[in-house]
């Protein structure tokens, strides 16, 4: 049951604040977006090396099991027993020959097919399932699974285009640029954000804020708007990759300082005692120092210097989000490179020098919305369009998120 939303005439350059707080809109997103025709990140293929390896994750709020089957393929299914709806897998990850529900011991194979029902024939001719009961009609609900390099994605939608088409060539090549080896996980963390999931996703796609909110970027010249950079937006508008070529300045250092003068993020007197961890090792064969990439609706691939992380944005209610981080390096990294990645992990995550603020700023908006549900945010930096630009003083990639979102939601 959906209420009438009259989207403002300015189109994607306006977003009604109701989008971030309305429980009905939120419920609708869970079905239309997260269970709809979108591909969502499930795992790295390397997390499931052997048949029987499994892990659990979510499509929106819906629990999912991801397995490596005896056929060597990766499978995914809803983590809900076909009998009475119980969670089949209780652990975050593990190894099993089959998937057996704890409640009544219904047993599924690693692809989600129902293998057996306890006491199906009853006892001594009494009880049991009726003769009409067919095992093959009561499997776990299966997802379509597709991979892009080592990234595994799933969707419930038979109508979603193939994953490679969904991602497109432009953004696809930017994924390959970062994931140039076999990923090796360095660790994971999770951050609970007290804001709507879209406020975080807008933040990720917002190239305008990074050097204004995050002093660390500006002060240490890790990224400035005065460096070369831009934003690529996928052919279908749904995904983005912003990039900074920090060593290529558009203006000289003094002019850059002048442009940032008076902006609180430039702290003239702040010096690090040990800045060695900020040195970037040559890795990607180009001069891009930062690349933040997002796939609609909720996946982020981050490269900040040599720090690489996957982020999954999981909705947990209209005003609650779980942000899951997987920090990676590559199998071929030597100890020196690994040490650098671990040191540069200080930049990101819940305690990150350049990302700490992102954990809180969505909540600052969430707290300011009450009473303004029918008013709108203004997204006019760089105009009204949502196509690629060789420039980051724009909100084109935020507008492109709404461009992808609105038709799915019928707004």
């Amino acid at each position: 049951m959906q209420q009438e939303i009259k989207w403002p005439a300015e189109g994607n350059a306006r977003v009604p604040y109701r989008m971030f707080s309305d429980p009905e809109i939120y419920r609708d997103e869970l079905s239309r977006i997260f269970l709809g025709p979108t591909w969502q990140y499930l795992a790295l293929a390397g997390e499931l090396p052997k048949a029987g390896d499994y892990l659990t994750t979510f499509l929106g709020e819906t629990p999912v099991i991801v397995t490596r089957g005896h056929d060597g393929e990766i499978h995914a299914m809803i983590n809900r027993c076909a009998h009475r709806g119980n969670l089949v897998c209780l652990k975050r990850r593990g190894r099993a020959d089959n998937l057996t529900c704890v409640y009544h011991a219904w047993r599924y194979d690693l692809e989600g097919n129902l293998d057996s029902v306890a006491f199906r024939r009853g006892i001594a001719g009494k009880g049991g399932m009726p003769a009409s009961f067919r095992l093959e009609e009561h499997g776990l609900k299966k997802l379509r699974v597709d991979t892009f390099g080592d990234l595994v994605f799933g969707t419930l939608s038979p109508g979603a285009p193939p994953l490679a088409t969904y991602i497109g060539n432009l953004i696809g090549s930017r994924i390959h640029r970062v994931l140039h080896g076999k990923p090796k996980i360095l660790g994971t963390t999770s951050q609970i954000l007290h804001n709507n999931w879209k406020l975080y996703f807008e933040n990720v796609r917002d190239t305008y804020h990074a050097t204004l909110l995050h002093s660390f970027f500006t002060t240490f010249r890790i990224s400035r708007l005065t460096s070369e950079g831009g934003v690529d937006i996928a052919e279908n508008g749904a995904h983005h990759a912003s990039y900074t070529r920090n060593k290529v300045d558009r203006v000289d250092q003094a002019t850059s300082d002048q442009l940032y003068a008076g902006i609180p993020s430039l702290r003239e007197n702040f010096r690090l005692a040990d800045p060695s961890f900020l040195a970037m090792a040559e890795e990607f064969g180009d001069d891009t120092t930062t690349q933040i990439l997002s796939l609609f609706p909720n996946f982020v691939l981050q490269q900040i210097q040599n720090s690489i992380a996957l982020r999954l944005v999981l909705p947990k209610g209209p005003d609650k989000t779980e942000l899951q981080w997987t920090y990676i390096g590559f199998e071929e990294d030597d100890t020196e490179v690994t040490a650098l990645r671990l040191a540069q992990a200080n930049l990101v995550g819940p305690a990150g020098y350049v990302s700490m603020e992102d954990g809180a700023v969505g909540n600052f908006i969430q707290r300011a919305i009450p009473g303004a549900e029918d008013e709108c945010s203004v997204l006019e930096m760089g105009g009204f369009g949502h196509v690629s630009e060789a420039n980051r003083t724009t909100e084109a990639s935020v507008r492109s998120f709404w461009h992808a979102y609105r038709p799915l939601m019928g707004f």
Partner: protein
Amino acid sequence: MQLEAVVRRLELEQLYTDYVHCLDTDELEHWPEFFTEECFYRVTSAENYEAGMPLGLIHATSRNMLKDRVSALREANIYEPQRYRHLVSSIKIVEEHGAALDLVANFMVVRTMQEGDMTLFGVGRYVDQVTRRDDAWKFARKTVVLDSRQIDTLLAIPL
């Protein structure tokens, strides 16, 4: 227990007492002084720690990196006013090797925000190594192992 062991026990209790009071009273500039110059400090989750994953949410390999944490908190990072209250208990000497001791201790941290919201922010164990420097115990290594993998909002003040 030998008198020497009793004295050492009291010294170690004092070290943890001073450490948490330093953090809880916002005297962060003194926090690096609890460490040796070439110290190792890391905040991680039990999940990472037990899986042998090296990631630290805060990952420092020198006292200077701890100083930088503090100056970034003071000068660069933006976060709402908040305070911690640490409770530390069950300090256990796991192993002695020469002048250095391996210790574990339990901790619990309540975070209170300016509006008064209180959260049980973190519970876990310190996995530490202490050594004598300038006639005092210093942390040569401190690994803060949080039982939960989740961090509420952000981790600004160290643990």
